[in-house]
């Protein structure tokens, strides 16, 4: 049944295929059973790639250590984040420093002059780079999306021509997709590229907004509509172009005045008959949609390590204050509510790290693994966790944190962008949930149809299984026990994960039974599905990492076990609560009311309650 997932077609192939295909290989002997739930569970848990936790070689580790030290030194000595924030620009000497460190070409292969580092090391470097939001965004816009198109879909000539200068930072790249009328909607891209009469150039006309590095970029990946003939019918399709500012006709608008990441340059770009040689088309003409999707999907994974790096820094900054500041003859650190904040920050950092490096490790596997689903989950989890942690860190300092004398308000402002860019969290939740649903649906369709037809045997089987589960029969996915992959200290947590996964399987089935393909429109349902998936993935990552840490005896691995167990316990209850909400007629489910409230408010475009001081007589 697993092979079914290979049949996904068209654009959804990009979304689905790889993630699910993988577990077909990672399937373990004792688990091969015909129950289709297990396939579903398997895809989240029992991938050979998840257990054991990915490791890097010793030489690579050395390389990281050599690389990290100077970057850390540079960021602590030479980067004045407060000044960058205040003056809303990154000073040229800072930029030059970054270039000298090679940070503009971390992932560009060495033959094109880059550092040629893996995703894992890229993620590691991002922990440090993220200490300054403006620099992080500038670099990400340059290499995570700006030049990614050339890197993944460009031909040899294009790579030879552009990558060396981009790697050295001589040229800065930008990614131009968003337009005034479109965010994720490709259909509303209005920028158009028309072939010139001699057939040697495309003329690009239109405007793009919110382009990071838009003001200083020399090379841009621009997406525009082109006329393509498909089966004799002329159709508009999106194509990707490498556009140099030197081609002329490009004007950039005033830099946007933003809440955070103020040092990064974001502006509008307009293209007026910009002549782009035909050899600058990335991939083939009309194939821009897939390129855009792949670039976006691959750019997200590093946010987990960025947020973790930021939180680790915040813990250092705030713990000093909490331990020295006295209230009522006690230091702040003795108060439970302050302790809770630090525990939460540590937990979040730990989970983000685990997820981020698990994902980057999977991406570094040979072949071209598609980890877009995992990356999306990491992005959603870490951007939201990061926001909470930053605001709690500020809270520890109280009023002091609110002033510009401390960096916390800047962190809060910078951090607010995370749930917004690189795909808003709402949209990514849709992606996560629908990808899962599509996969599960492929497997379960036949069974559900049988059930709807009234297959009694199947129904009885279902009921008895539910009964057994409700009577407390344990679910065994082989995580623990004799051949288990999880360390015995984490057995309870692993059991919880197994229970969650099992319940999730039946929840997904009942959702598919109820909504079928119209589940696309049930956003509140999908949101919970996505949240459960994210937490299941987080539990998996944490268990895998902690198991490895114990096994090889890393320093403070007992603390990791503590964190892992705490997180799994917490996530277990959250998942159960969400899945109860997903049941039909569940009293915990307020969806109908929520929709109604929103409808009435939106119809009136105002808060419509009468003022409490109003009276009728």
């Amino acid at each position, binding site marked *: 049944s697993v092979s079914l997932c290979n049949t*996904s*077609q*068209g*654009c*959804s192939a990009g*979304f689905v295929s790889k993630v699910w295909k993988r577990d077909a290989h990672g399937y373990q002997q004792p688990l091969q059973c015909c129950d289709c739930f297990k396939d579903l569970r398997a895809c989240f848990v029992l991938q050979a790639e998840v257990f054991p936790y990915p490791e890097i070689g010793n030489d690579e580790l050395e390389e990281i250590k050599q690389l990290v030290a100077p970057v850390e030194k540079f960021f602590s000595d030479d980067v004045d984040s407060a000044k960058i924030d205040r003056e809303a620009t990154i000073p040229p000497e800072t930029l030059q420093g970054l270039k000298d460190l090679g940070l503009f070409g971390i992932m560009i292969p060495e033959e094109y002059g880059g550092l040629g580092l893996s995703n894992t090391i890229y993620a590691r470097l991002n922990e440090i780079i993220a200490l300054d939001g403006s620099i992080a965004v500038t670099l990400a816009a340059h290499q995570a999306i700006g030049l990614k198109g050339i890197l993944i879909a460009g031909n040899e000539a294009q790579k030879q021509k552009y990558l060396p200068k981009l790697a050295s930072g001589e040229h800065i790249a930008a990614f131009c*997709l968003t337009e005034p009328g479109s965010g*994720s*909607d*490709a*259909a509303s891209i209005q920028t158009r590229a028309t072939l010139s009469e001699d057939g040697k150039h495309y003329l690009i006309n239109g405007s793009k907004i919110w382009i990071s590095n838009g003001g200083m970029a020399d090379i841009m990946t621009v997406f525009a509509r082109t006329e393509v003939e498909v089966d004799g019918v002329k159709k508009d*399709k*999106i194509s990707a172009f490498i556009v140099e500012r030197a081609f002329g006709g490009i004007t950039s608008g005033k830099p946007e005045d933003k809440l955070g990441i103020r040092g990064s340059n974001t502006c509008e770009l307009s293209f007026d008959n910009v002549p782009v040689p035909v050899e600058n088309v990335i991939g083939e003409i009309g194939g821009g*949609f897939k390129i*855009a*999707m792949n670039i*976006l999907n691959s750019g997200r994974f590093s946010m987990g390590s960025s947020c973790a790096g930021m939180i680790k820094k915040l813990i250092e900054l705030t713990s000093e204050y909490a331990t020295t500041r006295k209230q009522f003859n006690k230091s702040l650190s003795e108060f439970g509510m302050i302790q809770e904040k630090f525990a939460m920050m540590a937990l979040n950092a730990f989970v983000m790290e685990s997820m981020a490096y698990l994902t980057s490790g999977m991406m570094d596997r040979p072949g071209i693994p598609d980890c877009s689903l995992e990356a999306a989950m990491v992005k959603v989890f870490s951007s939201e966790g990061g926001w909470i942690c930053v605001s709690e860190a500020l809270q520890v300092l109280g009023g002091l944190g609110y002033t510009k004398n401390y960096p916390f308000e800047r962190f809060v402002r910078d951090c607010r962008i995370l749930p917004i860019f690189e*795909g808003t969290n709402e*949209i*990514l939740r*849709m*992606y996560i949930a*629908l*990808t899962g*649903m*599509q996969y599960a*649906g*492929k497997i379960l*369709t036949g069974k*559900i*149809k049988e059930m*709807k037809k009234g297959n009694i045997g199947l129904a009885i089987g279902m009921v008895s299984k539910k009964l057994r589960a409700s009577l407390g029969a344990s679910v065994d996915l082989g995580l623990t026990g004799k051949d288990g992959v999880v360390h015995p200290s984490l057995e309870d947590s692993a059991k919880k994960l197994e229970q969650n996964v099992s319940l999730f399987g039946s929840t997904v089935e009942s959702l*598919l*039974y*109820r*909504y*079928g*393909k*119209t*589940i*696309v429109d049930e956003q509140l349902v999908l949101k919970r599905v996505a949240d459960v998936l994210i937490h299941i993935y987080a539990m998996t990552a944490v268990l895998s990492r902690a198991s490895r840490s114990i096994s090889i005896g890393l320093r403070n691995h007992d603390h990791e076990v503590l964190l892992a167990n705490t997180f799994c316990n917490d996530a277990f209850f959250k998942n159960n609560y969400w899945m109860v909400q997903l049941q*039909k007629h569940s009293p915990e489910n307020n969806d109908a009311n929520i929709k109604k409230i929103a409808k009435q408010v939106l119809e009136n*475009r105002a808060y419509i309650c*009468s003022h409490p001081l109003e009276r*009728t*007589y």
Partner: protein
Amino acid sequence: MKGSRCLHQLKSLRLLSHAGRLLPPAAGDNGALFRPRSSSQLGGLQCAQREVLRHFHSSPACTKGQPARFVQEEDKTRDKSLVTHDDLFEQVAKEAKTKATFNKVIDVYTKGDIRRRGHVEFIYAALKKMPEFGVEKDLTVYNKLLDVFPKEVFVPRNFIQRMFNHYPRQQECGVQVLEQMENYGIMPNIETKVLLVQIFGEKTHPMRKYQRIMYWFPKFKHVNPFPIPEQLPEDPVDLARFSLTRMANDWDAKVTVYQLPCTDVTESGAEVTLPHIVGIQSPGQMEALAKHNPDRPVFVEGPFPLWMRKTCVYYYVLRADPTPPEEKIEEPYDPERCLSYPLQLDLDLDRDLGDDESFDVEDLDEGPVFAMCMTSQGDQATLNQWISGLQESNPILGQIPTLFRLGAGPRELQGVGDADSASRSWFPSHVQREEAHPGEEAEAVVEEAEAVVEEAEAVVEEEPRRSQGVKQ
């Protein structure tokens, strides 16, 4: 507790308000009249306050003797014969039917006879006359009317009286006053309650009525989600703007004034009055119109009535027939539409019946309405002006044949005063229409839509026919 506190407050309030009211009427009356009245009212209240249990009548003894003189001076016809109370109002009404005169009649009556003989009849008569005096929506007048009842006489004093209908005629009359208030949507206030308690006592029929009103009225006060202001705008353009917005009920709908009403003098010296044309269209309607199949005609229909309280206005719509099922094309699913997630799932599973909530009795396909307008002159020429105005923002209208299906104006809705103008024109009564347009009147087209649809192209220019509905 709370009630008694209110009662107490109210009494002192009334004292004040009476004291405040002393001066204005005194200006018109002579001094002799002024003194006893004020003292009687003040005295009466004080008595009621202090000696609630002792006195049945609210009027204290000191006022006795005064009313006789008052009646002689004030109203000579009244004591001569068995005048009905209607006549009393009629006599006063000869001067002017206002609140002041109405109050005067009540005053005359209450001062006239210490025993308030025939007060039930008087109150009934007064209730009937209230709309004529334009005081049917005035709470103070109702309270004043209730004040006519003698106080404490009808309050049951033992359980037998309480058990049976004590003073049924009086109670019924009291209920009638409240009923009329209810019909006019007047909410009683605490003063009404105090009066009712003083007159009838707790737990009597009028009190029950009062309580019921006070229970329901606040609940119904804001029950209308689309309230109409008490005062409608006077200016026809403003009125049209208001009513169109109200009908469209779309925040994005844009009102356009295609023509302001104005009067021009042509070279030949004839006065030409241009009617106002006010239209409304929302972006959604523009979009729907842009997608309309140009081979299928659109219709200008009207006039349709719209009642705004007591005003009726008329509007016209631009609409089309519902799209036949064979022309409805669903936009094909484009997998390269959304950059972030699949907009459709590739699944062969439909929604379960138990969760299918798509059934909707209101979901009837009546054909789209593309725009609405209001004008003071609903002939084809004027409406054509509207359509050409619309065409500026909806260029597709240039390709779509436009048919005018104008019905006869609803004559039966016209006011009495407009009877003769109504016989001349079919225009709605509120429309100010000059007589200078016999030609246009002939142009007024009432086309039977069915007959016209077939010859779609020709219709716009079609020779206007005069329908049988044009003239009476």
